[in-house]
């Protein structure tokens, strides 16, 4: 039988500690929509997404009411569009506009998959799609884009890295009048995962089933408040244990919502991604968890160790709670979306170098970082290359989502509003990596790739 303290714990988590289901994401394969005529292809894309996902929002809202837990986002991820473009040719932005239209028509928050996977080289459609990304992001509202430029198996495609540096800049320039929002929807990956339900990096991998429903759970506030109740002299293994137990509970809720939603929508349940994804709301910050562990401020020496422990404990707790854990699963550190990170960046405690170190032990990479508006493309490429190297060597996903704030300088702030938050322009090194970036070619796959 349920007891009173269990019931009150659940209610407090939801009401006071911002426990929520961050996203239910439906992954839809578009392979069967490819057509040599781009207009026909777009029509098939529209029809397939519409017919599969038209009840996604309604189902989400029903479950929200039944269990009293908010489901913040309803999203769709699709097969990388470069594959369709390779068949159809034509102006890739037509696909972006089709995705944007269907997203609006079914009422979802974002649609991801305007993507290309070029870790080893470019195939038909890849270059054209990448070239079109800045325009696609400027001319649509809900479309998210990602490009995978490296992997542990394939090494790093430095030609793609060079191009992506330029595209990140162009995307910011084309949306300079809208807080450079284009770049908040563009992620450059190394070791991208094919079942990630979180934006902006979600796409539906080609190895996935035709249509699946995945869930992303969140709850940094819950973890923080559990730690806040612990005595100051509790040892770190006790802290890790507490995080693990909390992650277990959070994940169980995700599992419940995911299986029920999948059943209602009559599609297989994909994976649950148990990520501590912060929002700018008070009490929903990953930085505050690190501070609760015992740092004066996030970014202080010790941050990397605390984050490594947090990330690992979250995974361990979640693994047992769900039948299929996937996606990124761990702690996210998007600077502008995390109240504690924003403060630490403003005060200068958190630097880009520290963030880079943190990405070696957490689940993603340099995320939502505002950089000076005059940053040259090759510096952005070099940031991408550094991050990809960390991912490649450590066999983990890393990503770069930086926003060159056009017209702003170090110390000024860019404000997106809403879930994307705001943040100060962070200082970068100004010495040029241009010669290395312009060499192009590939960084060969590391020793770790030779496991056979």
């Amino acid at each position: 039988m349920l007891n009173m303290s269990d019931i009150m714990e659940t209610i407090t988590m939801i009401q006071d500690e911002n426990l929520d289901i961050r996203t239910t994401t439906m992954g839809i394969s578009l392979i069967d929509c490819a057509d040599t005529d781009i207009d026909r292809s777009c029509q098939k894309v529209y029809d397939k997404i519409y017919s599969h996902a038209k009840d996604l929002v309604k189902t989400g809202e029903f479950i929200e009411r039944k269990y009293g837990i908010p489901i913040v986002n309803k999203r769709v991820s699709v097969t990388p569009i470069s594959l369709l473009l390779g068949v159809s040719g034509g102006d890739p932005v037509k696909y972006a506009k089709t995705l944007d239209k269907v997203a609006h028509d079914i009422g979802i928050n974002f649609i991801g998959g305007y993507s290309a996977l070029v870790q080893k080289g470019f195939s038909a459609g890849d270059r054209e799609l990448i070239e079109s990304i800045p325009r696609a992001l400027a001319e649509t509202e809900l479309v998210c884009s990602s490009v995978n430029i490296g992997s542990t198996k394939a090494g790093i495609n430095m030609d793609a890295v060079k191009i992506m540096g330029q595209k990140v800049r162009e995307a910011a320039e084309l949306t300079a009048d809208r807080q450079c929002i284009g770049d908040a929807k563009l992620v450059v990956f190394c070791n991208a995962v094919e079942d990630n339900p979180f934006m902006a990096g979600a796409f539906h991998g080609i190895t996935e089933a035709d249509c699946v429903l995945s869930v992303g759970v969140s709850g940094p506030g819950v973890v923080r408040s559990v730690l806040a109740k612990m005595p100051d002299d509790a040892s770190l293994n006790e802290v890790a244990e507490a995080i693990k137990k909390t992650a277990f509970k959070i994940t169980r809720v995700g599992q419940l919502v995911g299986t029920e939603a999948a059943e209602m929508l009559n599609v297989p349940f994909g994976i649950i991604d148990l990520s501590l994804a912060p929002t700018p709301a008070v009490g929903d910050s990953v930085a505050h968890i690190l501070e609760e562990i015992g740092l004066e401020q996030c970014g202080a020496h010790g941050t990397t160790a605390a984050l490594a422990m947090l990330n690992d404990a979250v995974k361990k707790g979640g693994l047992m709670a769900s039948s299929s854990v996937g996606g990124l699963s761990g702690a996210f550190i998007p600077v502008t979306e995390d109240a504690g990170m924003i403060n630490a960046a403003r005060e200068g405690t958190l630097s880009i170098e520290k963030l880079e170190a943190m990405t070696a032990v957490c689940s993603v990479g340099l995320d939502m970082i505002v950089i000076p508006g005059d940053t040259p493309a090759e510096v952005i490429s070099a940031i991408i290359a550094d991050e990809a190297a960390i991912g490649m060597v450590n066999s983990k996903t890393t990503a770069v989502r930086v926003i060159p704030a056009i017209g702003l300088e170090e110390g000024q702030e860019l404000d997106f509003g809403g879930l994307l938050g705001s943040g100060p322009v962070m200082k970068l090194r100004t010495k040029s990596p241009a010669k290395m970036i312009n060499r192009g070619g590939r960084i060969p796959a590391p020793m770790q790739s030779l496991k056979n």
Partner: protein
Amino acid sequence: MSETQKAVVTVIGKDMVGILSKVSAAVAEANANVMEVTQSVLDGYFCMIMILDITAADKSIDEMQALIGSHVPDMVVHVMHENIFNSMHRI
């Protein structure tokens, strides 16, 4: 016959006369059956948990929450399907 559907009602707030009766009236209005009630008053704060059988209820969970809330406007009322508690606290 489908299996029993249960919901958990929690009512929290300052203690006053008639809370239990008002909440029960609302529950009856929704055609839900009270299976179990626990309540405590600590420092003048009232906290009640009620398990309902909602198999035959003619209102949805959120409608029930609104209905109970309207009977005791000064209290914080939650109504949630029991599955969320079971999955979180039972292996």
